């Protein structure tokens, strides 16, 4: 990738994240909408207009499934352990909250996990792993994993600092997701692993609350 494109992309990413952070939204619908706009539509538009790369560049392919599964497995184990540690010693689960309605019925839980959670996972995966990771990987190689994780952390700190515990699963898994994505050249496996982590955590919470 040319430096011109790289720098231009950096400018674009920075500008879009700043605008995203400052953009006024008044309800959840608008929130989701701008996430789709800024994290899905904008990168696609930017690519279409400026980078003109194929979509598989951003990991939208099956890639190396063996690597994907393998690193997903490793990541899940490690992350689960991490969550155990932080839950046990730092009371993570006490601060982690889930919507109360998903505890009412299994259908609610399924709908929440496979629609809402999956959507958010998809958005984050596409933008941070698919777009940012693979763009930065062209210049920073594996350090791109850290870069995208830090960018995500920055965004969470700026926007959702009051909901830190809510984003903690995403934050903790972000570097692992980056690793999975780079190894498998696909965001599918990182996305699924990320989803599984959230799913496991939510299930635990439902169980605890029930």
């Amino acid at each position, binding site marked *: 990738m040319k430096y011109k494109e790289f720098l231009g992309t950096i*400018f674009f990413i920075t500008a879009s994240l700043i605008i995203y952070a400052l*953009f006024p939204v008044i309800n959840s619908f608008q929130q989701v909408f701008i996430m789709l*706009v800024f994290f899905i539509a904008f990168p696609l538009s930017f690519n279409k207009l400026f980078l003109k790369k194929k979509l598989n560049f951003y990991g939208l392919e099956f890639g190396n499934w063996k690597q994907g599964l393998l690193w997903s497995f490793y990541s899940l184990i490690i992350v689960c352990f991490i969550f155990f540690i932080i839950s046990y010693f730092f009371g993570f689960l006490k601060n982690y909250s889930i919507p109360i309605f998903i505890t009412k019925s299994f259908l609610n839980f399924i709908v929440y996990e496979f629609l809402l959670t999956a959507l958010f996972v998809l958005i984050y995966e596409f933008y941070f792993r698919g777009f940012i990771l693979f763009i930065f990987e062209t210049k920073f190689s594996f350090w791109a994993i850290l870069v995208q994780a830090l960018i995500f952390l920055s965004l969470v700190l700026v926007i959702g600092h009051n909901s830190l515990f809510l984003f903690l699963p995403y934050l903790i898994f972000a570097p692992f997701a980056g690793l999975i994505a780079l190894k498998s050249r696909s965001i599918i496996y990182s996305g699924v692993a990320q989803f599984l982590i959230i799913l496991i955590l939510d299930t635990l919470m439902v169980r605890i609350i029930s």
Partner: protein
Amino acid sequence: MGKKKKQRKINKIAAWVVVFGVIFSEITPIVVQAASLTTSGSTIGASIGPINSANNQRMGTSNKQQSPDVTVSFSVASGIITQGAKVTATAAPGYFKDDSSKLYYTWYLERNGCGLTKNPDGSKGKNPGDINRCDLDGDGEITVNDWKIAATQIIVKGSYDNTGETYSSSVDPGLSGYEANPSPSNTSANGNKGWVINSGADVNSVDAPNCYVQEPESGVNYELRKVDPLIQACPSGYQKVCATSGQNASCEVLNPSYDPVAAAGDPNYAIPKTITQTTDKFCAITNDSPVDNKDIYCKVTDLANFQTAPYCNTPNAVAMCVKYSTVTAAEGNAVFPDTTPVSSSLAALVFKKNNLCSSLNRNATTPPAWLTTKNTLFSGLQNQTCETAQGVFVNGDGTNTGDTSTILNCSTTKAGNVCKHLFAKEPRSVGGVVGDGKFTLAEKKFWGANPSVSSTNGSGADEANVVGLGVDKFSWLYTTGDQVGVVVEGDSAFQTNHADAAYKRMWAFSNNQCTALSDLHNNPVSTFDGSPTVNSMYLEGPGGATCDPTNTSGCTGFLTTELDLDSCLEENLLDPTSNENSDVNSKLNLQVVSEPANPINDPAGRGDTLNVTAASFNSQDSNSLSYNWTVQLSRDGSMAPIDTTSWKDITTDLEAIPSFSAADASGIGKQKLAIKLNLSDALIKGVVTGKASDGFYLKIKAKAKGTAIDGSQDAEGFVMVKVRQQQNEIKIYGVTANNTGMLTMDSGGVELCASAAEKSRCYVAQNEIVGIMVDNKQNELTNFSWKANGAAVTCDASVSSQCTTAAGNKVFVPILGNENEAVDVTAKAVNTKTNEAVELSRHFVITKMQAQINSTDETKVWPKFLGYYKDLNGNRYPDYSKSVFEAAQNSTADLLATFYPSSLADQSQLEWTIDGETKYELSNKKQINFPIKKTEGESYNIGFSVKYKTGSDSQVNNLRKALLKDWKIEPANLIDEQENVSLQINVVSPGSQKVASKEVQSGLASLISHLPENLMFLLKIVVTSGALLLLTGIVFAVMPENIFSEDN
């Protein structure tokens, strides 16, 4: 002759003197009495009473004969007189000489809307009818004759239908004819003495057969006849005059102050020669040539005693005979004694007409001195009345004898007979006479008879049916408003007072009324003053000879009247529907019944439903009856109502409760009313002044209005119901069991379902055992009988040691059934104080056990506002979450656990968790609070687990044992219910508060109000996108291509 013989002779003579003296003294008063009985006018002209005069009869018994009468009864085959029913009127006459078959029954039928257009007195009728429909004789008026025709046509026709009949020929008129008796025609057979009035004449022959009518109240019989007056002539030398008392005149006489001498010598003499002087008052003739029956007439002065006297038409004038003389100095005045010159001891004086001044020598040439002498002659009789003068003329003055032949008398003689049959009269155009013996074709046609037969209805000749010979039954098709009457003619059972063998021919009216005759009878004085005389009398001598008016002692008096008996018919109409002799009952009536017999009122809404039904009778169309229900409450409370009980209409109050709807209380066909007995205490206390704690009385009235087919009749009925009050209370308590399954009711503890709403419906859990008790501290109630959904429930020592008596006030009931089913527990007992039955009930609904966490203070913890939902009208309502609440940072959360049913509150174990951690210090607490320490954006997960059933597991088992032991409920059916409830509290910034519920906005307004927001948002997105991409493009454009080094 011996002394003794002499004495005996003297005694004999004395005895005869005494006897004769007694006889004469008795006779004299009779004569005097007869003379003094005249009511006014001259007492001289009175007649001596005939045999049957009132004064000659003791008690007036001859007038008190029973007159013929008739009773009419109505019958109908169905027993109910309704529109279109064939009604039969049957006449039962009495006191007639002949049997029914020989009597003439004149039926008359007034159809509804056929009122008379004119009354008998000529005035306009009360309710004149439709002439087009009702004038059957074509005279332009509706009269009783039209009514007679209406009935007679029905009688004659019978079932014959003359539609299509051409009336071109008929049988011999004689065959269909019938000659009435007396005949309506003058024939040689009847000696020209028929009742020709029926043929159109004004009067019958004097000797036509008599007929009579009895005045109903007095029983006096009147002969229908005219009479002629006869005023007798004065004797020779006397003339009939009318003289008036108190007459005077103004005369011109010489002025006593006038001096002719002085007048002759003084041309200016001012004193007038004459002056005017008014005479004294005397009796003077006012009419010296009165014309009989015009100026002077015969007046009936005492009808009962058949007395008459001549009267002058001039007011206050006396009819008298006076001697008319021209030779006396009185110049034609009548004087007594009649001497020449006029006696100075004049006893009576009647001046000639206009003769006062000359008789008193009061004239312009007579000096006053001479005048005084002359004046003295007559002045002694000033102010003498004509009656006194007449008395002197007749009886003398004690010195001179009077002349009794100068008494002026008058009498009456019988004139034409005015009897007539009351048959229906044919129009003149028909050309016939009813009852003349010939029934012509024209008559056949008019009456609608069959011209081919002599008897259309198969019962007697047609004309016989027209006259009503023996027609004692009349049947017709009834329409609402019809009235019927009958007048029966025939010879009564009593003979006349004439010297013949005749019986009184009389009439009997169906209602025995004749007001016109009663009015005439009660006006006893009638006059022969030229106007038609209607009530009068005449005297008949012995053997029918003319009666000598000067000696009527051997005569018989007959009261007469010229009254037209048709004028009595209207008041003798009978209404079949209300006639007391009917065996039908056509009046619409209602009977109202109710059940149950002793309903219970419950203000909580669990009272009985009182079903009231109105049953209608005699309705032609009961489905079209319009009902109106009202309910009244007795002010006397539980005291049984009496006639003077005051009632208050509470219909509107009951509709407001509602015990029933206004639509159910009135309308067509609303013959039933269901009243929910849920009267509030306030309503009862607001009306009842007496005691109502143990009951009150309701009067439920139904009014029904029939349609035209029922004659638009109204009917009313009511029923009184004693309503018991739900006294005493059933209380519900929690139950515990020991390890043998013996139950104990915690009656000293908290009463379950104690709120007003729960008293109407108590929510309980499935298979829950409830302890039920009736408060009976006064021990007034005994012999309790318990039922749950109709099945008997008992409690004895095997169930609980608290059930000391078999029919006690405590019972344990397992609420068996499925969710949402109901169990009604009723208790019946007897109040020993009032000896009345008492019934109580409670209603249980099985519900799923539920629990919920609520905030006790929504200013601190409030439900999260989710948005709005719209109703069907588009109105917006705020929607708040039940599971996510919000709380401000650094505040305190107060939470409350609520249970359904409420009884579970004390029967549940609670464990609270906050953020997944069990807070044991909050165990079993229904209300908790904790500080909100988290920061904005964080949240708390609050949960609590509810384990239902009382106490520890052993208590649950004990209850299981009790259910199995007492009610054979398997333990498996009793499930421990556990429920977990959770709540999320989001921490928000301090100062936040519950989104106030906004006013409901219309849907359209909401859409429009949010439309700009969403459009603005999209616009921002678009603009931002465009700006960002543009900016990026600019960056790309300005950046040099080969910045830093190329890379692949």
